[in-house]
Protein backbone atom coordinates (compact mmCIF):
# COMPACT_ATOMS: atom_id res chain seq x y z
CA UNK A 1 0.00 0.00 0.00
CA UNK A 2 1.64 3.19 -1.13
CA UNK A 3 -0.83 5.77 0.14
CA UNK A 4 -1.50 6.54 3.80
CA UNK A 5 -5.13 6.47 4.85
CA UNK A 6 -7.08 7.89 7.75
CA UNK A 7 -10.27 6.31 9.10
CA UNK A 8 -13.10 8.69 10.00
CA UNK A 9 -15.79 7.31 12.30
CA UNK A 10 -19.04 8.66 13.69
CA UNK A 11 -21.51 6.67 15.76
CA UNK A 12 -25.26 6.43 16.07
CA UNK A 13 -26.11 4.79 19.35
CA UNK A 14 -29.60 3.68 20.29
CA UNK A 15 -30.24 3.27 23.99
CA UNK A 16 -33.38 1.70 25.46
CA UNK A 17 -34.52 3.81 28.38
CA UNK A 18 -35.23 2.18 31.75
CA UNK A 19 -38.82 3.39 32.03
CA UNK A 20 -41.53 1.11 33.37
CA UNK A 21 -43.88 1.91 30.50
CA UNK A 22 -43.57 2.55 26.79
CA UNK A 23 -43.01 6.00 25.32
CA UNK A 24 -46.58 6.67 24.14
CA UNK A 25 -48.79 4.19 26.03
CA UNK A 26 -49.09 2.57 29.47
CA UNK A 27 -47.93 -0.89 28.38
CA UNK A 28 -45.09 -2.50 30.32
CA UNK A 29 -41.58 -2.42 28.87
CA UNK A 30 -40.61 -5.57 30.74
CA UNK A 31 -38.35 -7.85 28.77
CA UNK A 32 -39.20 -11.46 28.01
CA UNK A 33 -43.01 -11.52 28.27
CA UNK A 34 -45.02 -13.87 26.04
CA UNK A 35 -45.39 -12.42 22.52
CA UNK A 36 -47.85 -9.53 22.23
CA UNK A 37 -48.87 -9.56 25.90
CA UNK A 38 -47.51 -6.02 26.38
CA UNK A 39 -49.47 -4.38 23.60
CA UNK A 40 -52.42 -2.06 23.13
CA UNK A 41 -54.05 -0.17 20.25
CA UNK A 42 -51.38 2.60 20.48
CA UNK A 43 -48.26 0.45 20.15
CA UNK A 44 -49.81 -1.77 17.49
CA UNK A 45 -50.75 1.24 15.38
CA UNK A 46 -54.52 0.82 15.40
CA UNK A 47 -56.39 3.61 13.58
CA UNK A 48 -57.81 6.23 15.92
CA UNK A 49 -55.49 5.50 18.83
CA UNK A 50 -53.75 8.47 20.40
CA UNK A 51 -50.19 8.51 21.73
CA UNK A 52 -49.52 10.31 25.03
CA UNK A 53 -45.90 11.06 25.93
CA UNK A 54 -44.29 9.44 28.99
CA UNK A 55 -42.81 12.29 31.06
CA UNK A 56 -40.00 10.09 32.35
CA UNK A 57 -38.66 9.68 28.80
CA UNK A 58 -38.19 13.45 28.53
CA UNK A 59 -36.51 13.55 31.95
CA UNK A 60 -34.07 10.75 31.10
CA UNK A 61 -33.24 12.38 27.76
CA UNK A 62 -32.56 15.71 29.47
CA UNK A 63 -30.45 13.95 32.14
CA UNK A 64 -28.30 12.26 29.50
CA UNK A 65 -28.04 15.54 27.59
CA UNK A 66 -26.85 17.42 30.67
CA UNK A 67 -24.32 14.71 31.55
CA UNK A 68 -22.89 14.89 28.01
CA UNK A 69 -22.65 18.68 27.97
CA UNK A 70 -25.46 19.21 25.45
CA UNK A 71 -27.70 22.22 25.00
CA UNK A 72 -31.31 21.35 25.81
CA UNK A 73 -33.80 22.33 23.10
CA UNK A 74 -36.39 24.12 25.20
CA UNK A 75 -39.03 24.02 22.48
CA UNK A 76 -38.99 20.59 20.94
CA UNK A 77 -41.31 18.42 18.88
CA UNK A 78 -41.78 14.98 17.43
CA UNK A 79 -41.81 14.13 13.73
CA UNK A 80 -43.04 11.18 11.69
CA UNK A 81 -40.54 9.10 9.79
CA UNK A 82 -42.39 7.15 7.12
CA UNK A 83 -41.39 3.69 5.97
CA UNK A 84 -42.95 0.27 5.50
CA UNK A 85 -41.68 -2.73 7.37
CA UNK A 86 -43.65 -5.44 9.18
CA UNK A 87 -42.09 -4.59 12.56
CA UNK A 88 -43.50 -1.06 12.27
CA UNK A 89 -47.31 -1.31 12.56
CA UNK A 90 -48.05 2.39 12.01
CA UNK A 91 -45.99 2.56 8.80
CA UNK A 92 -44.18 5.42 10.47
CA UNK A 93 -41.90 5.79 13.44
CA UNK A 94 -42.41 8.69 15.81
CA UNK A 95 -38.98 10.31 16.11
CA UNK A 96 -37.40 13.77 16.15
CA UNK A 97 -35.76 15.33 13.10
CA UNK A 98 -36.13 19.10 13.19
CA UNK A 99 -35.90 19.88 16.90
CA UNK A 100 -34.12 17.05 18.76
CA UNK A 101 -34.16 17.41 22.55
CA UNK A 102 -30.37 17.76 22.98
CA UNK A 103 -27.77 19.32 20.69
CA UNK A 104 -24.10 20.29 20.49
CA UNK A 105 -22.56 18.32 23.31
CA UNK A 106 -19.53 16.15 23.72
CA UNK A 107 -17.54 14.00 26.12
CA UNK A 108 -13.86 13.66 26.80
CA UNK A 109 -12.10 10.36 26.28
CA UNK A 110 -8.59 9.18 27.15
CA UNK A 111 -6.41 8.23 24.21
CA UNK A 112 -2.74 7.15 24.13
CA UNK A 113 -1.88 10.68 22.97
CA UNK A 114 -3.90 12.43 25.70
CA UNK A 115 -7.44 13.65 26.22
CA UNK A 116 -9.73 14.15 23.25
CA UNK A 117 -13.27 15.48 23.00
CA UNK A 118 -15.76 13.54 20.90
CA UNK A 119 -18.58 15.80 19.82
CA UNK A 120 -22.24 14.85 20.13
CA UNK A 121 -24.31 16.36 17.34
CA UNK A 122 -27.69 15.52 18.86
CA UNK A 123 -29.74 13.22 21.03
CA UNK A 124 -33.31 12.54 20.01
CA UNK A 125 -36.21 10.57 21.46
CA UNK A 126 -38.02 7.90 19.46
CA UNK A 127 -39.93 4.64 19.70
CA UNK A 128 -38.53 1.17 19.13
CA UNK A 129 -40.00 -1.22 16.56
CA UNK A 130 -41.46 -4.69 17.15
CA UNK A 131 -39.49 -7.88 16.84
CA UNK A 132 -39.57 -10.17 13.81
CA UNK A 133 -39.06 -13.85 14.36
CA UNK A 134 -38.41 -16.01 11.33
CA UNK A 135 -40.56 -19.10 11.50
CA UNK A 136 -38.67 -22.36 11.42
CA UNK A 137 -41.40 -24.44 9.82
CA UNK A 138 -43.23 -22.16 7.42
CA UNK A 139 -42.18 -19.57 4.85
CA UNK A 140 -43.33 -16.70 7.02
CA UNK A 141 -42.24 -14.28 9.72
CA UNK A 142 -43.94 -13.70 13.06
CA UNK A 143 -44.29 -10.30 14.68
CA UNK A 144 -44.12 -9.66 18.42
CA UNK A 145 -45.03 -6.06 19.28
CA UNK A 146 -43.94 -6.20 22.94
CA UNK A 147 -40.91 -4.05 22.06
CA UNK A 148 -42.91 -1.74 19.80
CA UNK A 149 -43.05 1.66 21.50
CA UNK A 150 -40.28 1.01 24.01
CA UNK A 151 -38.56 4.39 24.45
CA UNK A 152 -35.19 4.95 22.84
CA UNK A 153 -32.78 7.82 22.69
CA UNK A 154 -30.48 7.98 19.70
CA UNK A 155 -27.14 9.63 20.40
CA UNK A 156 -25.49 10.88 17.22
CA UNK A 157 -21.81 11.71 17.50
CA UNK A 158 -19.79 13.95 15.23
CA UNK A 159 -17.32 12.16 12.91
CA UNK A 160 -14.56 12.75 15.45
CA UNK A 161 -13.17 9.26 15.98
CA UNK A 162 -10.16 7.90 14.09
CA UNK A 163 -9.68 4.37 15.41
CA UNK A 164 -11.42 1.39 17.01
CA UNK A 165 -9.72 2.28 20.32
CA UNK A 166 -11.27 5.75 20.29
CA UNK A 167 -14.66 4.30 19.40
CA UNK A 168 -14.56 1.85 22.29
CA UNK A 169 -13.35 4.52 24.73
CA UNK A 170 -16.26 6.73 23.66
CA UNK A 171 -18.89 3.96 23.83
CA UNK A 172 -17.63 2.81 27.21
CA UNK A 173 -17.66 6.30 28.66
CA UNK A 174 -21.15 6.95 27.36
CA UNK A 175 -22.35 3.58 28.66
CA UNK A 176 -21.06 4.35 32.15
CA UNK A 177 -22.61 7.82 32.19
CA UNK A 178 -26.00 6.43 31.21
CA UNK A 179 -25.77 3.52 33.66
CA UNK A 180 -24.83 5.86 36.50
CA UNK A 181 -27.80 8.07 35.63
CA UNK A 182 -30.01 4.98 35.83
CA UNK A 183 -31.39 5.88 32.40
CA UNK A 184 -30.60 2.45 30.91
CA UNK A 185 -28.71 -0.74 31.68
CA UNK A 186 -26.89 -0.38 28.33
CA UNK A 187 -26.31 -4.06 27.55
CA UNK A 188 -24.79 -4.48 24.11
CA UNK A 189 -25.44 -8.20 24.12
CA UNK A 190 -29.14 -7.85 24.84
CA UNK A 191 -29.61 -4.86 22.57
CA UNK A 192 -30.48 -2.24 25.18
CA UNK A 193 -27.51 -0.36 23.68
CA UNK A 194 -27.02 -0.66 19.90
CA UNK A 195 -24.02 0.87 18.23
CA UNK A 196 -24.09 1.66 14.50
CA UNK A 197 -20.72 2.61 13.03
CA UNK A 198 -20.51 5.16 10.21
CA UNK A 199 -17.09 4.82 8.65
CA UNK A 200 -15.21 6.30 5.74
CA UNK A 201 -11.56 6.46 4.77
CA UNK A 202 -9.59 9.25 3.16
CA UNK A 203 -6.03 9.95 2.23
CA UNK A 204 -4.10 11.28 5.18
CA UNK A 205 -4.12 15.07 5.12
CA UNK A 206 -7.23 15.30 2.96
CA UNK A 207 -9.92 17.72 4.16
CA UNK A 208 -12.77 16.05 2.28
CA UNK A 209 -14.65 13.11 3.73
CA UNK A 210 -14.79 9.86 1.78
CA UNK A 211 -18.05 8.02 1.08
CA UNK A 212 -19.24 6.36 4.27
CA UNK A 213 -21.01 3.13 5.04
CA UNK A 214 -23.14 2.31 8.05
CA UNK A 215 -22.45 -0.93 9.93
CA UNK A 216 -25.14 -2.59 12.04
CA UNK A 217 -25.42 -5.63 14.31
CA UNK A 218 -22.43 -5.02 16.56
CA UNK A 219 -23.14 -6.81 19.83
CA UNK A 220 -19.88 -6.50 21.74
CA UNK A 221 -16.78 -4.33 21.98
CA UNK A 222 -14.91 -7.11 20.22
CA UNK A 223 -17.38 -7.12 17.34
CA UNK A 224 -17.11 -3.31 17.07
CA UNK A 225 -13.31 -3.46 16.90
CA UNK A 226 -13.29 -6.30 14.37
CA UNK A 227 -15.94 -4.68 12.18
CA UNK A 228 -14.05 -1.37 12.10
CA UNK A 229 -10.83 -3.11 11.10
CA UNK A 230 -12.55 -5.15 8.38
CA UNK A 231 -14.54 -2.23 6.96
CA UNK A 232 -11.51 0.05 6.90
CA UNK A 233 -9.57 -2.57 4.96
CA UNK A 234 -12.46 -3.24 2.60
CA UNK A 235 -12.80 0.44 1.72
CA UNK A 236 -9.05 0.97 1.29
CA UNK A 237 -8.89 -2.06 -1.01
CA UNK A 238 -11.71 -0.66 -3.15
CA UNK A 239 -9.95 2.69 -3.43
CA UNK A 240 -6.61 1.07 -4.21
CA UNK A 241 -8.27 -0.86 -7.03
CA UNK A 242 -9.66 2.40 -8.36
CA UNK A 243 -13.21 1.45 -7.42
CA UNK A 244 -15.75 3.49 -5.51
CA UNK A 245 -17.17 2.99 -2.05
CA UNK A 246 -20.95 2.77 -2.26
CA UNK A 247 -22.95 4.52 0.45
CA UNK A 248 -24.95 1.70 2.01
CA UNK A 249 -25.95 -0.05 5.20
CA UNK A 250 -24.04 -3.23 5.94
CA UNK A 251 -24.70 -5.95 8.45
CA UNK A 252 -21.82 -7.41 10.43
CA UNK A 253 -21.62 -11.18 10.84
CA UNK A 254 -19.36 -11.74 13.81
CA UNK A 255 -19.05 -15.49 13.26
CA UNK A 256 -17.83 -15.07 9.70
CA UNK A 257 -15.96 -11.85 10.57
CA UNK A 258 -17.34 -10.16 7.51
CA UNK A 259 -20.17 -7.82 6.56
CA UNK A 260 -22.70 -7.81 3.78
CA UNK A 261 -24.84 -5.18 2.15
CA UNK A 262 -28.46 -4.83 3.33
CA UNK A 263 -29.83 -4.12 -0.13
CA UNK A 264 -33.46 -4.63 0.82
CA UNK A 265 -33.54 -1.26 2.55
CA UNK A 266 -31.95 0.64 -0.35
CA UNK A 267 -35.21 1.94 -1.74
CA UNK A 268 -36.46 3.16 1.63
CA UNK A 269 -34.27 6.21 2.11
CA UNK A 270 -36.92 8.82 1.44
CA UNK A 271 -38.58 9.02 4.85
CA UNK A 272 -40.76 12.07 4.10
CA UNK A 273 -40.56 13.41 7.65
CA UNK A 274 -43.28 15.76 8.79
CA UNK A 275 -44.34 17.15 12.19
CA UNK A 276 -46.21 14.56 14.28
CA UNK A 277 -49.76 15.91 14.49
CA UNK A 278 -50.84 13.63 17.38
CA UNK A 279 -48.31 15.03 19.87
CA UNK A 280 -48.17 18.60 21.09
CA UNK A 281 -44.83 20.42 21.44
CA UNK A 282 -42.71 20.07 24.58
CA UNK A 283 -41.71 23.25 26.33
CA UNK A 284 -38.84 22.74 28.76
CA UNK A 285 -38.49 25.52 31.29
CA UNK A 286 -35.24 26.63 32.95
CA UNK A 287 -36.65 25.39 36.27
CA UNK A 288 -37.32 21.95 34.89
CA UNK A 289 -33.76 21.68 33.60
CA UNK A 290 -32.38 22.94 36.93
CA UNK A 291 -34.47 20.43 38.85
CA UNK A 292 -33.08 17.59 36.78
CA UNK A 293 -29.56 18.97 37.12
CA UNK A 294 -29.93 19.04 40.91
CA UNK A 295 -31.15 15.48 41.01
CA UNK A 296 -28.29 14.12 38.84
CA UNK A 297 -26.57 11.32 40.75
CA UNK A 298 -22.83 11.23 41.28
CA UNK A 299 -21.18 10.23 38.00
CA UNK A 300 -18.09 8.12 37.55
CA UNK A 301 -15.48 10.88 37.48
CA UNK A 302 -16.79 12.30 40.75
CA UNK A 303 -16.99 8.86 42.34
CA UNK A 304 -13.43 8.09 41.27
CA UNK A 305 -12.18 11.20 42.99
CA UNK A 306 -14.24 10.64 46.12
CA UNK A 307 -13.14 7.00 46.50
CA UNK A 308 -9.52 8.05 46.54
CA UNK A 309 -10.10 10.87 49.00
CA UNK A 310 -12.73 9.40 51.33
CA UNK A 311 -11.62 5.77 51.39
CA UNK A 312 -7.95 6.28 50.65
CA UNK A 313 -7.88 3.48 48.08
CA UNK A 314 -5.41 3.43 45.16
CA UNK A 315 -6.25 4.92 41.78
CA UNK A 316 -6.08 1.47 40.19
CA UNK A 317 -8.68 0.05 42.60
CA UNK A 318 -10.95 3.06 42.25
CA UNK A 319 -10.92 2.76 38.46
CA UNK A 320 -11.91 -0.89 38.54
CA UNK A 321 -14.56 -0.43 41.24
CA UNK A 322 -16.22 2.38 39.29
CA UNK A 323 -16.00 0.60 35.94
CA UNK A 324 -19.51 -0.66 36.60
CA UNK A 325 -22.23 1.08 38.57
CA UNK A 326 -23.31 -2.22 40.07
CA UNK A 327 -19.85 -2.92 41.50
CA UNK A 328 -19.56 0.64 42.78
CA UNK A 329 -22.95 0.25 44.48
CA UNK A 330 -21.91 -3.01 46.15
CA UNK A 331 -18.62 -1.44 47.23
CA UNK A 332 -20.32 1.53 48.86
CA UNK A 333 -23.06 -0.47 50.54
CA UNK A 334 -20.63 -3.05 51.94
CA UNK A 335 -18.18 -0.42 53.12
CA UNK A 336 -21.01 1.42 54.85
CA UNK A 337 -21.68 -1.70 56.93
CA UNK A 338 -18.19 -2.96 57.78
CA UNK A 339 -16.16 0.23 57.32
CA UNK A 340 -13.21 -1.61 55.74
CA UNK A 341 -12.96 -0.14 52.24
CA UNK A 342 -9.69 -1.77 51.28
CA UNK A 343 -10.89 -5.23 52.32
CA UNK A 344 -14.15 -4.77 50.42
CA UNK A 345 -12.19 -3.59 47.40
CA UNK A 346 -9.97 -6.67 47.57
CA UNK A 347 -12.94 -9.04 47.64
CA UNK A 348 -14.57 -7.28 44.70
CA UNK A 349 -11.44 -6.98 42.58
CA UNK A 350 -10.16 -10.43 43.43
CA UNK A 351 -12.64 -13.19 44.07
CA UNK A 352 -15.73 -11.45 42.66
CA UNK A 353 -14.11 -10.66 39.32
CA UNK A 354 -12.51 -14.09 39.17
CA UNK A 355 -15.87 -15.78 39.67
CA UNK A 356 -17.58 -13.43 37.22
CA UNK A 357 -15.08 -14.48 34.59
CA UNK A 358 -15.39 -18.13 35.49
CA UNK A 359 -19.19 -18.08 35.40
CA UNK A 360 -19.29 -15.74 32.42
CA UNK A 361 -21.59 -13.21 34.06
CA UNK A 362 -21.80 -9.43 33.81
CA UNK A 363 -21.52 -7.07 36.76
CA UNK A 364 -25.21 -6.15 36.38
CA UNK A 365 -26.13 -9.75 37.09
CA UNK A 366 -24.35 -9.95 40.46
CA UNK A 367 -26.91 -11.00 43.03
CA UNK A 368 -25.15 -11.30 46.39
CA UNK A 369 -26.00 -8.80 49.09
CA UNK A 370 -23.58 -6.30 50.62
CA UNK A 371 -24.74 -7.52 54.09
CA UNK A 372 -23.39 -11.00 53.50
CA UNK A 373 -20.09 -9.80 52.07
CA UNK A 374 -19.69 -7.50 55.08
CA UNK A 375 -20.39 -10.40 57.48
CA UNK A 376 -17.77 -12.51 55.71
CA UNK A 377 -15.18 -9.76 56.03
CA UNK A 378 -15.98 -9.49 59.73
CA UNK A 379 -15.59 -13.24 60.21
CA UNK A 380 -12.10 -13.09 58.71
CA UNK A 381 -11.19 -10.00 60.70
CA UNK A 382 -12.27 -11.62 63.96
CA UNK A 383 -10.11 -14.59 63.11
CA UNK A 384 -13.13 -16.87 63.15
CA UNK A 385 -12.27 -18.35 59.76
CA UNK A 386 -9.07 -18.41 57.77
CA UNK A 387 -8.59 -17.05 54.26
CA UNK A 388 -8.99 -20.28 52.36
CA UNK A 389 -12.23 -21.12 54.15
CA UNK A 390 -13.38 -17.55 53.51
CA UNK A 391 -12.79 -18.01 49.78
CA UNK A 392 -14.85 -21.18 49.77
CA UNK A 393 -17.66 -19.50 51.69
CA UNK A 394 -17.55 -16.51 49.37
CA UNK A 395 -18.11 -18.74 46.39
CA UNK A 396 -21.39 -19.84 47.95
CA UNK A 397 -22.33 -16.27 48.84
CA UNK A 398 -21.58 -15.31 45.22
CA UNK A 399 -23.86 -18.04 43.89
CA UNK A 400 -26.60 -18.30 46.49
CA UNK A 401 -26.24 -15.22 48.69
CA UNK A 402 -26.19 -17.27 51.91
CA UNK A 403 -25.59 -15.79 55.37
CA UNK A 404 -21.92 -16.65 56.05
CA UNK A 405 -22.31 -16.54 59.86
CA UNK A 406 -25.00 -19.20 59.84
CA UNK A 407 -23.23 -21.20 57.15
CA UNK A 408 -19.91 -21.29 58.99
CA UNK A 409 -21.71 -22.26 62.18
CA UNK A 410 -23.73 -25.02 60.56
CA UNK A 411 -20.85 -26.52 58.63
CA UNK A 412 -18.46 -26.17 61.55
CA UNK A 413 -15.91 -24.21 59.55
CA UNK A 414 -14.70 -22.00 62.37
CA UNK A 415 -11.04 -22.09 63.25
CA UNK A 416 -10.39 -24.53 66.06
CA UNK A 417 -8.82 -22.49 68.82
CA UNK A 418 -8.24 -25.51 71.03
CA UNK A 419 -4.44 -25.32 71.39
CA UNK A 420 -4.26 -28.76 73.01
CA UNK A 421 -5.88 -30.39 70.00
CA UNK A 422 -3.62 -28.49 67.66
CA UNK A 423 -0.47 -29.55 69.52
CA UNK A 424 -1.65 -33.13 69.53
CA UNK A 425 -2.28 -33.05 65.79
CA UNK A 426 1.07 -31.43 65.07
CA UNK A 427 2.85 -34.04 67.10
CA UNK A 428 1.15 -36.73 64.98
CA UNK A 429 2.25 -34.97 61.81
CA UNK A 430 5.85 -34.80 63.05
CA UNK A 431 5.74 -38.49 63.84
CA UNK A 432 4.35 -39.43 60.45
CA UNK A 433 6.75 -37.33 58.42
CA UNK A 434 10.25 -37.98 59.68
CA UNK A 435 11.79 -37.13 56.29
CA UNK A 436 10.44 -33.57 56.25
CA UNK A 437 11.36 -33.09 59.88
CA UNK A 438 14.89 -34.17 59.09
CA UNK A 439 15.04 -31.85 56.10
CA UNK A 440 13.88 -28.95 58.22
CA UNK A 441 16.35 -29.65 60.97
CA UNK A 442 19.03 -30.08 58.33
CA UNK A 443 18.48 -26.50 57.19
CA UNK A 444 15.78 -26.87 54.51
CA UNK A 445 13.49 -24.27 56.02
CA UNK A 446 11.00 -24.73 53.21
CA UNK A 447 10.11 -28.17 54.50
CA UNK A 448 7.96 -26.57 57.18
CA UNK A 449 5.42 -25.64 54.52
CA UNK A 450 4.69 -29.29 53.89
CA UNK A 451 4.21 -29.94 57.60
CA UNK A 452 1.83 -26.97 57.91
CA UNK A 453 -0.12 -28.33 54.96
CA UNK A 454 -0.36 -31.81 56.50
CA UNK A 455 -1.57 -30.36 59.78
CA UNK A 456 -4.15 -28.23 57.98
CA UNK A 457 -5.36 -31.32 56.18
CA UNK A 458 -5.82 -33.21 59.44
CA UNK A 459 -7.64 -30.19 60.89
CA UNK A 460 -9.89 -30.15 57.79
CA UNK A 461 -8.80 -26.60 56.99
CA UNK A 462 -10.17 -25.22 60.23
CA UNK A 463 -6.94 -23.97 61.73
CA UNK A 464 -5.01 -20.74 61.68
CA UNK A 465 -1.87 -21.37 59.58
CA UNK A 466 0.20 -18.81 61.49
CA UNK A 467 -0.60 -20.60 64.74
CA UNK A 468 0.40 -23.96 63.25
CA UNK A 469 3.63 -22.38 62.07
CA UNK A 470 4.38 -21.03 65.50
CA UNK A 471 3.72 -24.31 67.33
CA UNK A 472 5.61 -26.33 64.72
CA UNK A 473 8.70 -24.16 65.14
CA UNK A 474 8.52 -24.58 68.89
CA UNK A 475 8.21 -28.35 68.66
CA UNK A 476 10.90 -28.90 66.08
Amino acid at each position, binding site marked *: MSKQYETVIGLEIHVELA*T*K*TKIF*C*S*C*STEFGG*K*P*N*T*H*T*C*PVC*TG*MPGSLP*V*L*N*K*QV*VEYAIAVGLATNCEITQYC*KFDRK*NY*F*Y*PDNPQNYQISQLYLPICRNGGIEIDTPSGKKTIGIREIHMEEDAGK*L*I*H*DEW*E*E*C*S*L*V*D*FNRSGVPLIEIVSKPDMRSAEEVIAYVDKLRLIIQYLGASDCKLQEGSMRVDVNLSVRELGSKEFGTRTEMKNLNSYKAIARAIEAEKNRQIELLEEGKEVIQETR*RWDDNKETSYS*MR*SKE*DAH*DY*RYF*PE*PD*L*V*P*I*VISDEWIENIRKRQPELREEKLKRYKEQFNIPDYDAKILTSSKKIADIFEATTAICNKPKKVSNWLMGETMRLMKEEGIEAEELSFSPENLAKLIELVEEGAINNSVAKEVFEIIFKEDIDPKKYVEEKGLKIVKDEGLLIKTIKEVIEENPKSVEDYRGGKKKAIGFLVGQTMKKMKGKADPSMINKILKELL
Partner: protein
Amino acid sequence: MSQVISDELMEYIANLAKLELSEKEKEQAKKDMERMLSYIDKLNELDTEGIEPLSHIFSVNNVFREDVVTNGDDSENILSNAPERKDEAFKVPKTVE
Protein backbone atom coordinates in the same frame (compact mmCIF):
# COMPACT_ATOMS: atom_id res chain seq x y z
CA MET B 1 -49.58 28.57 -12.22
CA SER B 2 -49.87 24.83 -12.38
CA GLN B 3 -47.06 22.36 -11.78
CA VAL B 4 -46.73 19.21 -13.78
CA ILE B 5 -46.19 15.85 -12.08
CA SER B 6 -43.96 13.76 -14.33
CA ASP B 7 -44.55 10.05 -14.92
CA GLU B 8 -41.29 9.26 -13.09
CA LEU B 9 -42.32 11.26 -10.04
CA MET B 10 -45.74 9.61 -10.03
CA GLU B 11 -44.09 6.19 -10.21
CA TYR B 12 -41.73 7.11 -7.37
CA ILE B 13 -44.48 8.37 -5.07
CA ALA B 14 -46.63 5.30 -5.73
CA ASN B 15 -43.65 3.10 -4.97
CA LEU B 16 -42.97 4.85 -1.65
CA ALA B 17 -46.61 4.44 -0.70
CA LYS B 18 -46.52 0.78 -1.81
CA LEU B 19 -49.41 1.42 -4.21
CA GLU B 20 -49.94 -0.28 -7.54
CA LEU B 21 -51.94 2.07 -9.70
CA SER B 22 -53.54 1.45 -13.08
CA GLU B 23 -52.75 3.90 -15.91
CA LYS B 24 -56.14 5.52 -15.38
CA GLU B 25 -55.58 5.90 -11.64
CA LYS B 26 -52.12 7.35 -12.25
CA GLU B 27 -53.53 10.02 -14.55
CA GLN B 28 -56.20 10.88 -11.99
CA ALA B 29 -53.66 11.00 -9.14
CA LYS B 30 -51.40 13.27 -11.19
CA LYS B 31 -54.25 15.69 -11.75
CA ASP B 32 -55.17 15.62 -8.03
CA MET B 33 -51.61 16.31 -6.98
CA GLU B 34 -51.22 19.11 -9.48
CA ARG B 35 -54.33 20.73 -8.03
CA MET B 36 -52.94 20.39 -4.51
CA LEU B 37 -49.63 21.90 -5.53
CA SER B 38 -51.28 24.85 -7.20
CA TYR B 39 -53.19 25.46 -3.97
CA ILE B 40 -49.87 25.48 -2.11
CA ASP B 41 -48.61 27.96 -4.70
CA LYS B 42 -51.54 30.15 -3.79
CA LEU B 43 -50.46 30.04 -0.13
CA ASN B 44 -46.93 30.93 -1.21
CA GLU B 45 -48.23 34.28 -2.39
CA LEU B 46 -48.51 35.31 1.26
CA ASP B 47 -45.57 37.05 2.87
CA THR B 48 -44.51 34.76 5.75
CA GLU B 49 -41.23 36.54 6.48
CA GLY B 50 -40.42 36.33 10.20
CA ILE B 51 -43.32 34.00 11.06
CA GLU B 52 -42.40 30.77 12.88
CA PRO B 53 -43.65 27.60 11.20
CA LEU B 54 -46.75 26.28 12.94
CA SER B 55 -47.15 22.55 13.44
CA HIS B 56 -50.20 22.58 15.72
CA ILE B 57 -53.15 24.92 15.64
CA PHE B 58 -53.89 24.56 19.37
CA SER B 59 -51.80 26.46 21.86
CA VAL B 60 -51.35 23.41 24.06
CA ASN B 61 -47.97 22.16 25.25
CA ASN B 62 -46.60 19.49 27.55
CA VAL B 63 -49.26 16.82 27.58
CA PHE B 64 -47.65 14.01 29.56
CA ARG B 65 -48.39 10.67 31.18
CA GLU B 66 -46.81 9.46 34.41
CA ASP B 67 -44.65 6.36 34.03
CA VAL B 68 -47.10 3.87 35.54
CA VAL B 69 -48.18 0.56 33.98
CA THR B 70 -51.96 0.48 33.66
CA ASN B 71 -52.34 -1.75 30.59
CA GLY B 72 -52.56 -5.47 31.21
CA ASP B 73 -52.44 -8.42 28.85
CA ASP B 74 -54.94 -7.67 26.10
CA SER B 75 -53.22 -9.87 23.52
CA GLU B 76 -56.36 -11.78 22.49
CA ASN B 77 -58.14 -8.56 21.56
CA ILE B 78 -55.06 -7.15 19.86
CA LEU B 79 -54.42 -10.35 17.91
CA SER B 80 -58.03 -10.47 16.77
CA ASN B 81 -57.03 -7.59 14.46
CA ALA B 82 -54.34 -9.65 12.78
CA PRO B 83 -55.12 -10.41 9.13
CA GLU B 84 -53.24 -13.63 9.75
CA ARG B 85 -52.16 -15.08 13.03
CA LYS B 86 -49.90 -17.89 14.13
CA ASP B 87 -49.87 -18.89 17.80
CA GLU B 88 -49.37 -15.68 19.78
CA ALA B 89 -47.98 -13.61 16.93
CA PHE B 90 -49.00 -11.65 13.86
CA LYS B 91 -48.09 -13.66 10.79
CA VAL B 92 -46.55 -11.81 7.84
CA PRO B 93 -44.82 -12.80 4.60
CA LYS B 94 -41.23 -13.85 5.19
CA THR B 95 -38.92 -10.86 5.50
CA VAL B 96 -35.30 -11.12 4.50
CA GLU B 97 -32.63 -9.05 6.12
